[in-house]
């Protein structure tokens, strides 16, 4: 199954802190983006393929890399400050899931930052210019760039280290800056940059064009009708709907994501809230964050603003996606605001869980919890939701809302060990732009801390399923948990559970088509 050793779980819920194993994950990093992909993102394209099948760096790469670093440290206080003030206390050294899973010391957060800090010191500080050996400063060489590319693509930007750092140093800020620098010297990651290009071209990460999307949604309507006997709508580009739903495109077809999408649709249906998806902004994910590119992140975010204006909606709601919710909650107002054209009664944007939990509290949904009695649930806090966002009015609402909803629709729920949940949660191992097959070893090993916790509650408390609220978590887990002896279908969407337990009371959708009775004609019209 794999040409590397899959970690063995100890069953105690936690990983013992491993001894360091230098260069355990040395390598070339993920596939490099070709000039075409870089062009779409306004990055330099003056680099060519080399004879060995990779790519050369741009001419004057060293000067251009240093110039970009200098530019970034003058525009991001986080970067400048975090390069300056680390005291190397070691508090973060055992906090990264990739270090715990791989033992490579360069995956310790401080060592990962040091890859850039050593270069920063050499060229931009007194001590590093004059006494490089004393302060561990190094010249920027091609070997250093290779190390950057490899190890800054072994960071999922989950920010667990920043929770424990006495100064809040956030390695994600450093790895984002590093990727931005690398993108400017011909070292972009193919996975991320190709996907962003698709969003610019088509509207979503999958490159799913409007007709295909319409077709998929129609199929989902048929599935739900076959299942419940009720025509629950999955509207696309319907002007005048109250809510614009922005959700990760994986929700349109991947398992168990799509079961979550059915859940959102049923909730809107039951509450009588008219809603729509947009084919122009058919993507909740924003990979611009992963590559640390404010400009590209904003360009993606502006599509949502444009779609909201065009479709004349009153609210924007996001589906289950971790980093999408961070970008939405924390950045959307900055990137694409102000949203003064929306209904001021609602926060902009809202999370689907805020909508659903609100409706449950108001008693507007009829729930049959016994529908989920075949499962004992636990919940995986997604890193970006846990440490980079909020739900509701109070700090920590991001932990309460999903659990409240799960408990409202399921009878059996238990939490995993305390040091693996809430803001101490571990990344799934595939976040931050690493959900690509060329990083499979990293993904498997990086999942180990979460797998330890899951195994513990499985054995001790009979947990059968783990719910998640992030498209990447769901994709990553379904792919890697078989390596640890679990089954793919043990991963569920939170709104999949809602979907199962929700008893539909409303016979006709508030968005029912006028010719709803005549199924065949309607299909013909839609195809035309």
């Amino acid at each position, binding site marked *: 199954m794999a040409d590397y050793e899959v970690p063995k779980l100890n069953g105690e819920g936690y990983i013992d802190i491993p001894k360091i194993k230098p260069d355990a994950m040395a390598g070339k990093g993920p596939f490099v983006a070709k000039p075409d992909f870089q062009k779409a993102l306004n990055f330099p394209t003056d680099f060519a393929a080399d004879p060995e099948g990779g790519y050369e760096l741009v001419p004057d790469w060293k000067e251009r890399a240093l110039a970009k670093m200098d530019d970034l440290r003058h525009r991001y206080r986080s970067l400048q400050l975090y390069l300056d003030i680390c005291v190397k206390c070691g508090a973060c050294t055992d906090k990264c899931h990739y270090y715990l899973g791989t033992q490579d010391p360069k995956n310790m957060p401080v060592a990962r930052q040091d890859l850039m800090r050593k270069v920063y010191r050499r060229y931009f500080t007194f001590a590093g210019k004059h006494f490089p050996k004393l302060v561990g400063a190094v010249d920027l060489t091609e070997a250093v760039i290779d190390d950057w590319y490899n190890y800054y693509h072994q960071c999922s930007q989950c920010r667990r280290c920043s929770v424990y750092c006495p100064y*809040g140093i956030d390695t994600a800020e450093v790895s984002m800056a590093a990727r931005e620098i690398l993108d400017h010297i011909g070292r972009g990651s193919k996975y991320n940059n190709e996907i962003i290009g698709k969003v610019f071209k088509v509207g979503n990460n999958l490159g799913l064009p409007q007709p295909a999307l319409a077709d998929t949604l129609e199929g989902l309507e048929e599935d739900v009708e076959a299942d419940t006997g009720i025509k629950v709508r999955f509207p696309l580009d319907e002007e005048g709907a109250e809510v614009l739903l922005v959700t990760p495109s994986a929700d349109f077809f991947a398992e168990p994501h799509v079961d979550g999408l059915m859940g959102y649709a049923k909730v809107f249906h039951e509450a009588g809230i008219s809603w729509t998806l947009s084919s122009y902004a058919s993507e909740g994910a924003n990979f611009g964050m992963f590559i640390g590119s404010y400009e590209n992140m904003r360009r993606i975010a502006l599509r949502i603003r444009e779609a909201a204006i065009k479709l004349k909606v009153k609210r924007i709601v996001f589906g289950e996606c971790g980093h999408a919710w961070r970008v939405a*909650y924390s950045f959307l107002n900055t990137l694409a605001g102000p949203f003064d054209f929306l209904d001021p009664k609602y926060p902009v944007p809202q999370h689907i869980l805020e909508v659903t939990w609100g409706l449950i509290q108001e008693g507007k949904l009829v729930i049959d919890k016994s529908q989920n009695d075949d499962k004992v649930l636990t919940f995986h806090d997604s890193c970006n939701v846990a440490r980079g966002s909020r739900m509701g009015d109070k700090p920590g609402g991001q932990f309460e809302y999903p659990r409240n909803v799960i408990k409202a629709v399921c009878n059996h729920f238990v939490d995993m060990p305390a040091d693996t949940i809430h803001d101490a949660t571990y990344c799934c191992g595939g976040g931050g732009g690493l959900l690509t097959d060329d990083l499979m070893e990293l993904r498997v090993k990086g999942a180990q801390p979460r797998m330890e916790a899951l195994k513990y509650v499985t054995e001790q408390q009979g947990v059968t399923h783990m719910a998640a609220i992030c498209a990447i978590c769901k994709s990553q887990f379904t792919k890697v948990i078989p390596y640890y002896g679990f089954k793919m279908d043990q991963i569920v969407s939170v709104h999949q559970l809602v979907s199962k337990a929700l008893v539909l009371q409303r016979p006709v959708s508030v968005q029912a088509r006028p010719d709803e009775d005549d199924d065949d004609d309607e299909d013909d019209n839609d195809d035309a």
Partner: protein
Amino acid sequence: MTFVSILYGLLFWVATLVLVVGVGRRIYFYTQISVPLKIPTTPAPVTQSGVVWRMFREVVFFQSLFRANKYIWLFAFIFHMALWLVLLRHTRYFMEIGAFLGFLQPFGKYASFAMVFGLAGLLARRILVDRVRYISAPSDFLMLALLIGIGLSGMMMTFVAHTDITMVKGFFRGLMTFDFHPLPASPILLVHLLLVAILMLVFPISKLLHAPGVFFSPTRNQVDNPREKRHVSSWALELEKKNQIYRDEVKNG
């Protein structure tokens, strides 16, 4: 008036100037750099007063460090708190001893043991724990050695070989009014003061910047209110105003 006294007088003037101006410039630099995005590590306070309380817990109790690692917390907390007591005790060399300062003297005196203990603990971790050894540069060891040297030389004067502290007080009060007074001819005192001067000189160009720096850390000092209040940096606003996506478009046209 000895040559050494004049040399040390000049040294402390320079060191003080470097410390104050260096740290001041660095702080000003930090205030001038924008924070383009809202990045508090959540759960984060939703009000400004909540942020003040969060920061207070961080700088007084080292809350995050406590969650991270109890050994580092113990050594670091003991060292820093003892350092405060020792520093407060040392204000006697710059001002008259009032009731409060008098009350503090014995605490400051014995805090030196705690200070050196904490530093020794941190040094032991740096040597013994493979992860911490891996991330340590020579300067990280030297910084601890410097502080331990300051602590031990100071303790020598307090507990073993006393020096004429009235003369020391005269020397420093003299410096404050640009007036030279002699230092006592004590080798331990000269070592102690030299190490302190070195510490002051490297402060603005070293990781000691963590002390003022922590207050500027966006993950700790930002209010969690991005949906309620729009946050935009100056350079991002320029993009918006010129209706551009990429910064080089703004620059070029």
